[in-house]
């Protein structure tokens, strides 16, 4: 049997809470097998509701979700056995040991005991020396790792990480990114929501943006950056200018740093030719520069502009 390319298919999914709040509006989304998919969206956009429906924590109002070909409602056992969830909140049994809580999770998901597997997870997550520690004695970062260990205990094919590095220091965040990359390398499909755009930019293969319960964009990260990522060329001038010289108006140059810099903005799919033209035109105008640098609009700026366009 051919392996399906899409490991998750969300079809016409809607959710209206009892309060009348419409959290999801006819959402359609496919997640490809083996990818890291980052779901971005402002607070209240519907990220957690979408994840919660897929994982069985919230009932959908209409539509359906297939996880590895299994309907998450009608065939919930088969679907959930394939899914691991690391929720946003650090919810742990304070009086349990790390080993006990991870072992419990494996059993809960219908897998026989496998101490060797649990040991491997704990070692991979740098938790092995804490295996007998009570959860209440662990730091926030360590608890976050325990949550990941619990979610991985039953060897899921799909892993949901809901704000995985919220409240985690920079060093630990980078460690976690390494863990996530290693998981992807082992074949696990990862869907993460995050407020840290840098995180999505660093790790994701594809980006989805959800806003007011609707998916407003799904794109390869590289393609998204290429399409929407504006680039800038900044030239540091040898002599300051009082204004942009006549004849250079067509390039849309802007003067900055009290006349010491000229900034040229262009599309990322660019127009290298445009840069060459600008530099030639500057030379012809007798404007000399001592240094230059290019920069690209970050994913965060792209995200903000996408959302603000629809606000």
């Amino acid at each position, binding site marked *: 049997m051919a392996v399906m390319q899409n490991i998750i298919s969300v079809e016409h999914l809607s959710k209206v809470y009892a309060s009348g709040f419409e959290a999801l509006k006819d959402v359609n989304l496919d997640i490809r097998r083996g990818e890291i998919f980052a779901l971005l969206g402002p607070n209240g956009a519907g990220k957690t509701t979408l994840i919660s429906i897929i994982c069985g924590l919230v009932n959908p109002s209409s539509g359906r979700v297939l996880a590895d070909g299994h309907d998450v409602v009608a065939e919930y056992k088969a679907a959930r056995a394939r899914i691991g969830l690391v929720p946003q909140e650090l*919810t742990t049994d304070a009086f349990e040991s790390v080993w006990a809580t991870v072992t419990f999770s*494996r059993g809960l998901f219908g897998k026989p005991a496998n101490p060797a597997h649990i040991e491997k997870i704990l070692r991979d997550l740098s938790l092995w020396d804490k295996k007998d520690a009570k959860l209440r004695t662990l730091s926030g970062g360590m608890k976050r790792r325990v949550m990941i260990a619990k979610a991985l205990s039953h060897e899921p094919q799909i892993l949901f990480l809901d704000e995985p590095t919220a409240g985690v220091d920079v060093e630990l965040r980078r460690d976690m990114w390494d863990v996530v990359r290693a998981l992807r390398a082992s074949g696990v499909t990862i869907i993460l929501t995050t407020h840290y755009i840098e995180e999505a930019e660093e790790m994701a293969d594809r980006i989805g943006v959800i806003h007011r319960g609707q998916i407003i964009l799904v794109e390869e990260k590289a393609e998204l950056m290429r399409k929407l990522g504006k680039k800038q060329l900044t030239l540091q001038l040898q002599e300051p200018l009082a204004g942009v010289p006549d004849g250079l108006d067509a390039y849309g140059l802007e003067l900055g740093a009290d006349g010491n810099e000229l900034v040229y903005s262009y599309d990322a799919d660019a127009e290298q030719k445009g840069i060459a033209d600008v530099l030639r035109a500057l030379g012809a105008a007798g404007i000399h520069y001592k240094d230059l640098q290019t920069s690209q609009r970050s994913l965060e700026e792209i995200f903000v502009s996408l959302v603000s366009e629809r606000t």
Partner: protein
Amino acid sequence: MNVYAIRAIYLFEMARTGRTLLQSIVAPVLSTSLYFIVFGAAIGSRMQEIDGVSYGSFIVPGLIMLTLLTQSISNASFAIYFPKFVGTVYEVLSAPISPFEIVIGYVGAAATKSILLALIILATAGLFVDIEIQHPVWMLLFLVLTAVTFSLFGFIIGIWADGFEKLQLVPLLIVTPLTFLGGSFYSISMLPPAWQTVALFNPVVYLVSGFRWSFFGTSDVNIGISLAMTLVFLAVCLATVTWIFKTGYRLKN
């Protein structure tokens, strides 16, 4: 059937008992022993026999039933309420486990604990009074049925409760009074006729009466009716739990 999941929940809950041994086992045994000292030895020695049974022995089934009801409710309600309170219930709800399997795990553990406790209290009672059990199989049947039924009831309370106050509300304000008024310490035939009729609306009367019959062969109501009423309450609790999981009441949005 997700046997591994049922086992995981069951063992998790039993391990919790081990961690809280003083609260789970020792405290109820101590309080029951105090009942025997006060009602059995101190007051009971001045009371007449009831249906040919000394008062100290007569109250044994009632005391066991009192503990069985309160502990079954307390164990099961706390077992499901606490994960809701701290948020760890997400894991159970997202696991490949059916509502029936969840109930077997939690209710099975709660019932096991209260049955063990009942047997410990029975053994403790043996230190104070003579005990005879005329129908041991029936005794065990009532023990198991009552423990399972009231653990289910406790499970429902644990899901319904949205605060610690509500968690205590039903056991303290309804179950304990009904148990005291349900013939734990007396035969309802000792009540005035009008109150005997009122007492028959108390479901605990049937549990205590049936359980006492298994000890002494005498009862306030027919053993068949006692069994039927226990099964009816069990069916009502099962139907309620099924509805809860079907609708996601207080568990899912």
